[in-house]
């Protein structure tokens, strides 16, 4: 297997050259070459690695290059080809509108061997954008990773515990501003859940929670460091460095177990509030594929998860393993959608 590496490295390099090429004139042909050339070269890897029912799989990142979904898609493509699970696994970006643009494109996808990255953010975006294409219309395959959220306050904040913060929000209402990611996103949902759990009536939540949404990364961190807002919620990765440097204080993380990046921060459960919520990512396939096709994809992703290279990638990227496939993932997605809809209704973002 090791001996295969030089070859596959070269093929990823070729792909990247092709990507640059897409931008340039001449390389339109190059790109065509690389995509049409792939199936031809894919007769090699059947057999030894696994009974590969799938020669090539398209991986779609429903986001622009550079973000978490894009990184996940590229990691999948890389491990799949490096371990010869498939002959080729090109990654395409179809970014925009919280992944709903990608979802719309998946709805018309005819190739059953297509894996699109999904996650809690997309489930929220479908609701807030009132998207015609829904996650229910696709075929859920597996959950892969998750990231806990963390609730932070500026270092000089008066709030010592999560309970202090929640009590203050309940007492002062909109006087306490909380910031985080996009409106209706997972950060916003966690804020809503904390309030309902603290006994705020659902119809009162929109008048109590002053949530300042941000579209770009870093804006929430800026507001917290500048003391413009009183608290913030985001993925652990986004705030951990500032917590470790002492600029921010972590009140709690949202996972069931303490987070690797912030081992000293208690969980929300530890703080006596019954909420667990993580930002998970997984893969879905086009709707309407046959049971065999679905099973083949589930097997493929299961094998992907067993690769050592995958475990290493999780570690370098700081992702937590949250593997869950097949029917279990199906019902998980259904539950997530219901929870998301309820919470969004509570915080007044959808009707």
């Amino acid at each position: 297997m090791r001996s295969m590496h030089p070859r596959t490295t070269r093929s990823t390099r070729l792909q990247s050259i092709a990507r640059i090429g897409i931008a340039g004139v001449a390389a339109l042909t190059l790109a065509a070459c690389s995509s049409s050339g792939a199936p031809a070269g894919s007769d090699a890897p059947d057999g030894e690695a696994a009974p590969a029912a799938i020669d090539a799989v398209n991986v779609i990142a429903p986001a622009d290059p550079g973000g978490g979904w894009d990184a996940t898609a590229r990691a999948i493509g890389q491990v799949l080809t490096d371990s010869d699970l498939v002959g080729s696994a090109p990654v395409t970006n179809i970014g925009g509108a919280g992944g709903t643009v990608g979802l719309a494109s998946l709805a018309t996808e005819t190739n059953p061997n297509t894996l699109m990255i999904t996650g809690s953010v997309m489930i929220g975006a479908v609701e807030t954008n009132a998207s015609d294409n829904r996650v229910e219309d696709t075929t859920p395959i597996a959950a892969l990773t998750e990231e806990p959220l963390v609730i932070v306050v500026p270092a000089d904040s008066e709030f010592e515990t999560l309970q202090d913060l929640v009590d203050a929000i309940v007492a002062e209402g909109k006087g306490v501003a909380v910031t985080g990611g996009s409106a209706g996103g997972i950060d916003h949902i966690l804020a809503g859940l904390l309030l309902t759990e603290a006994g705020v009536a659902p119809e009162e939540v929109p008048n109590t929670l002053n949530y300042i949404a941000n579209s770009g990364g870093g804006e929430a961190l800026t507001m917290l460091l500048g003391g413009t807002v009183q608290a913030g919620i985001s993925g652990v990765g986004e705030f951990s460095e500032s917590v470790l440097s002492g600029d921010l204080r972590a009140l709690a993380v949202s996972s069931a177990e303490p987070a690797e990046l912030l081992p000293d921060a208690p969980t929300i459960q530890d703080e006596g509030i019954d909420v667990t919520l993580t930002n998970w990512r997984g893969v879905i396939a086009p709707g309407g594929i046959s049971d065999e096709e679905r099973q083949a994809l589930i097997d493929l992703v299961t094998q992907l998860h067993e690769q050592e290279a995958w475990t290493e990638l999780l570690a370098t990227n700081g992702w937590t393993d949250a593997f869950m496939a097949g029917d279990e993932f199906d019902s998980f997605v259904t539950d997530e959608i219901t929870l998301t809809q309820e919470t969004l209704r509570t915080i007044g973002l959808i009707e």
Partner: protein
Amino acid sequence: MDTWSLLLDGFATALQPIYLLYALLGVLLGTAVGVLPGIGPAMTVALLLPITYALEPTAAFIVFAGIYYGGMYGGSTTSILLNTPGESASIVTALEGNKMARAGRGAAALATAAIGSFVAGTIATVLLTLLAPTVARFAVSLGPSDYFALMVIAFLTVGALLGDSAWRGMVSLSIGLFIGLIGVDTLTGQTRFTLGIPQLGDGIDVVLVAVGLFALGEALYVGSRLRGGELPIIPITRGWRTWMRRSDWARSWKPWLRGAAIGFPIGSIPAGGADVATFLSYASERSLAKPEYRKQFGKGAIEGVAGPEAANNAAAAGVLVPLLTLGIPTSATAAIILSAFQTYGIAPGPRLFETQPVLVWALIASLFIGNAMLLVLNLPLVGMWVKLLQIPRPYLYAGILVFAGLGAYAANFTTFDIGVLLVLGVLGFFMRRLGFPVAPLVVGAILGPMAEEQLRKAMQISQGDPAYLVHSPFSWIAYGLMVVIIALSLWLKRRRARYEASLPAVDTVAISALDEDIESHEPHPELDRGRLSTTALPRVRRDGEDDDPDDPAPSR
């Protein structure tokens, strides 16, 4: 002292031959991809990101630094020559730069952009080296109300772009503000004017707006006039000595320095960004220009290229301040660099300088090296680039259309964007046809959404108290400055009017003599007054003999 020794260590790392090669590779790739319209530095870095996976972190970041600065350089080239800005920060460059190119001054525009970028980039990198932590702490202390004040000042630029008819300018601005509304509203997550089309969810990319209105609209307009007769071929200057005349140097160096002074701090402010810096630079150059040069604005004033180009490169270095010291990405490019850091298991944040000193200082050193390399690479290329303009117009515009379409497609890899581009192109055509200026529209589309978001955030934090907008020292200073600028310009106008009234003869003579001087150096200033002539005008042969030995007969 400590900083210097660390920086020297950084140079020691970055100056190793293998890293120099990586830097060269980076600037070459960055320039090559950045030259394509519609593909700005963010896209360039994102597309080339996978290449660096094979490299060790230091080498990868040196390549990055090269790509980043290279992309910034490349973007201005197409802006100037083809009127197709590659990113929002070079939109302003297209305003004056393309007019200069069409008046045969393309080489001067490219040269002042390249040298200005180098000067400002170097100054800003020095500031980054010395002041990063201090500047970053100040920058994050600003809040939405301060950003809003900054946006209000930036909106003053519109005044400079309105053109002859204020109401036409305002109509154009309003269309721009409307285009800015399209998409998902950040603060509530609700969609606005998307007509149920998911691709409109993220709004319309400002680069599409600029390329559609500038390049496509103009190509259509020229196309509609072509049958009237041959268009004159744009003259170009030959020999590098003629690129920048003494007067060009004299008119460029102050804008370069002011551009650096405006760009660096604005770039380091989380809600600033390079585009706001270029607007502010353009507006200040226009108001600070000598009266005889100010008349040239809108027709190809070199200050209008030198200032904004310097500002956007200085802002590019400014963006690294919050990124390296606090882990805050303030632009799309920075966000991608941040994710590249994470791929290597490096967490940018307040501890980066402590945990990864070798990497950070090598990166900063390679910014200096990359900057110098770009100047060396790009100046000789100026002569080659301007030859593009000698392509007869029908072919030139056909090429522009192809590149604009390709750029629009490559930005998101969706054909939908090409449709949007065409619609905007038709809008641009009719606006030109009916005499509406397009620049205010682009400014509205860029600044509108920013100003709206900051105003609403400020209102949300203060729960609707307008006094919050002026609660901080920064906002007092900003609004105070604005009042002073407006008052000063009104006073200057009146004073000049009075002065000119009292000394009519002397003044006109002086100005017209200066005008004569400018005109005598510029072969075709009258060909382009916003409207293209349909017939082949006799060329001004006054200085033509030495500057253009080949007869530019239409048959070529």
